[in-house]
């Protein structure tokens, strides 16, 4: 199909989704810091300000708690706000509104109200921005009942998952990896939704299953090529939405290969992949394992500044290759 042949960046895909959602629905608007004339700290909002104006692409003061709360209130009053938080680290400034308000209002009020809002924020390391601008906090959000959590790994998913997040009647946290913003991929021109809660099988292999999130998906696919050259055939699965988690394809694939390597950028201690490991061990897939589940995660340390330190802090392609080969050896 011609439309799937078109390639745009992850960042352009997000902008296209927002633009199409705003054209289709007057209740959709965006608010955040420097998203207007500036175009967004990572350039995501770009020309939206010129297309939709200052009311709907609303620049805000540096007030994360205030603007997330304003989004909660606007959503309660029938709007569909999209908040951009400049770095996901700054969600810490807004946690009351995210965790105590947005996540709980529908439940606490016995279902009488909904909070259909989207909070988009870039996460992850790799930019030399150090410990307060590089975290991966997805497990925090995934631990809070009432929040949906999305981590798009491709340009197509960045658009399609965001469109679904905007449609969703619940608060949805969309965590975009900042190293992916400039990566390109085929993206449909139309407003094609990618449903929340559907794990993507990025590659199918017979020897080992890699489950990866965020930027670790593309790194795992790269590692898979190297492993293939060495005669090791791996699957790569991308949950895409951490909440709700579609675990069936993961359990099936691991049952088939007998080996599970779980890769995330966030620190391993109490990380999201621990949940995936638990799902495997709580299911009959446990009996099909040929070796213990292996997790490959970021160090249990803040992200450092120096490039060689930063690179050493999170899994890189060779680390994934090594972990996969070790896992294969362990089961021989």
């Amino acid at each position, binding site marked *: 199909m011609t439309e799937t042949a078109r390639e745009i960046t992850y960042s352009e895909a997000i902008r296209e989704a927002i633009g199409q959602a705003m054209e289709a629905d007057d209740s959709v608007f965006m608010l955040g810091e420097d998203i207007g004339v500036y175009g967004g700290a990572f350039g995501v909002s770009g020309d939206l300000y010129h297309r939709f104006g200052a009311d709907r692409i609303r620049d805000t*003061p540096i007030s994360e*708690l*205030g603007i997330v*709360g304003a989004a909660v*209130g606007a959503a309660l009053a029938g709007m569909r706000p999209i908040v951009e938080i400049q770095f996901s680290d700054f969600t810490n400034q807004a946690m009351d509104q995210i965790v105590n*308000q947005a996540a709980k209002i529908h439940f606490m009020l016995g279902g*009488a*109200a909904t909070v259909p809002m989207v909070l988009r924020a870039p996460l992850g390391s790799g930019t030399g921005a150090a410990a307060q601008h590089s975290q991966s906090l997805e497990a925090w959000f995934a631990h809070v*009942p009432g929040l949906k959590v999305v981590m798009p790994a491709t340009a197509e998913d960045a658009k399609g998952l965001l469109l679904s997040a905007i449609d969703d009647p619940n608060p949805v946290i969309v965590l975009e990896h900042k190293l992916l913003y400039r990566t390109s991929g085929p993206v449909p021109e139309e407003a094609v939704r990618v449903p929340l809660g559907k794990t993507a099988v990025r590659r199918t292999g017979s020897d080992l299953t890699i489950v990866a999130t965020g930027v670790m998906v593309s790194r795992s696919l790269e590692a898979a090529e190297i492993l293939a050259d060495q005669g090791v055939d791996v699957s790569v699965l991308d949950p895409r939405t951490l909440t709700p988690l579609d675990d069936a394809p993961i359990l099936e694939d691991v049952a088939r290969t007998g080996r599970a390597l779980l890769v995330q950028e966030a620190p391993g201690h109490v990380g999201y992949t621990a949940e995936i490991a638990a799902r495997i061990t709580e299911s009959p897939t446990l009996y099909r394992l040929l070796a213990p589940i292996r997790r490959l995660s970021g160090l249990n340390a803040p992200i450092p500044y120096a490039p060689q330190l930063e690179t050493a802090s999170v899994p890189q392609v060779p680390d994934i290759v090594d972990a996969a080969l070790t896992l294969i050896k362990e089961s021989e």
Partner: protein
Amino acid sequence: MPLSPIETAASARHALLTMWTTRRFEEAVDDLFARGLMHGTMHLSIGQEASATGACMALRDDDAITSTHRGHGHCIGKGADLTRMMAELLAKETGYCRGRGGSMHIADVATGNLGANGIVGGGIPIAAGAALAYQLRGEDHVVACFFGDGATNEGAFHEAVNLAAIWKLPVVFICENNKYGMSFSTEKSMAVDTIAERASAYGIPGVGVDGNDVAAVYDVVHAAVERARAGDGPTLVESLTYRHKGHSKSDKNLYRTREEISEWRDKDPILQFEGVVRERGLLSDEEIQAVRTEAMESIRNAVRTANAAPDADPSDLLDAVFAQA
């Protein structure tokens, strides 16, 4: 069309009935709690009824409010159903929140009550956001945002009032200053004399009012509501009042004197207002007595009906976590 509590006999009756209903509601839950018939915790606004009633009377039915942990008066003032409120506190399936929320989370979106809040200051940004929604849609609703003196020391207050000020949002910030954030007095918690003067930091009007005078509260809030509705932006109203009861059920009143409590009991807002309406000839003694009886009867009826309702049902707890598309 809002009318002042001292405008007509009907508006006087409405104000008095709302205040007595709030008082009797809270006395009833206090009693049920003391007898072990009600669970959890609650925060009573006994002594503060004029503030909630006067402010709510300045609103149109299609205006909205956000409330606080001490919010029974705001709910009743905005027209909540007493039986559903009581059922919520009694952990019944027929309660406003089906037993999921309790006293601190009663909301009634249908009557414009966007919800009480268990987090001090939590409702302030939400009020600004609802006001932003109305402004974006070109609707002329106003949001009355209630909070206490303690909330004005939270960052949420600063951020939300600033947003409302720069965007001229149709919201009225109503600080019910009852002099204590739990046990910490305003003398200790702030270095300014009044909360109203904090408004100058945001470039908006700040107005103080005797929060125990229901007509005075109405006047000040009404002017602020009309200003907001006209597109001129928010106002900070400081309604000075006092809670006769402790902060919550754990309070032993160690931080204030008997004399102070007794002094404020003498300024009881409901008895004061009865004096005013009698003096102005708005209501006779018989009519005042009839209002008292009606309030008592409606609360008795609410307790009776709520008690007969089915208990909140745990079978579908997980279904309520996410809204279905």
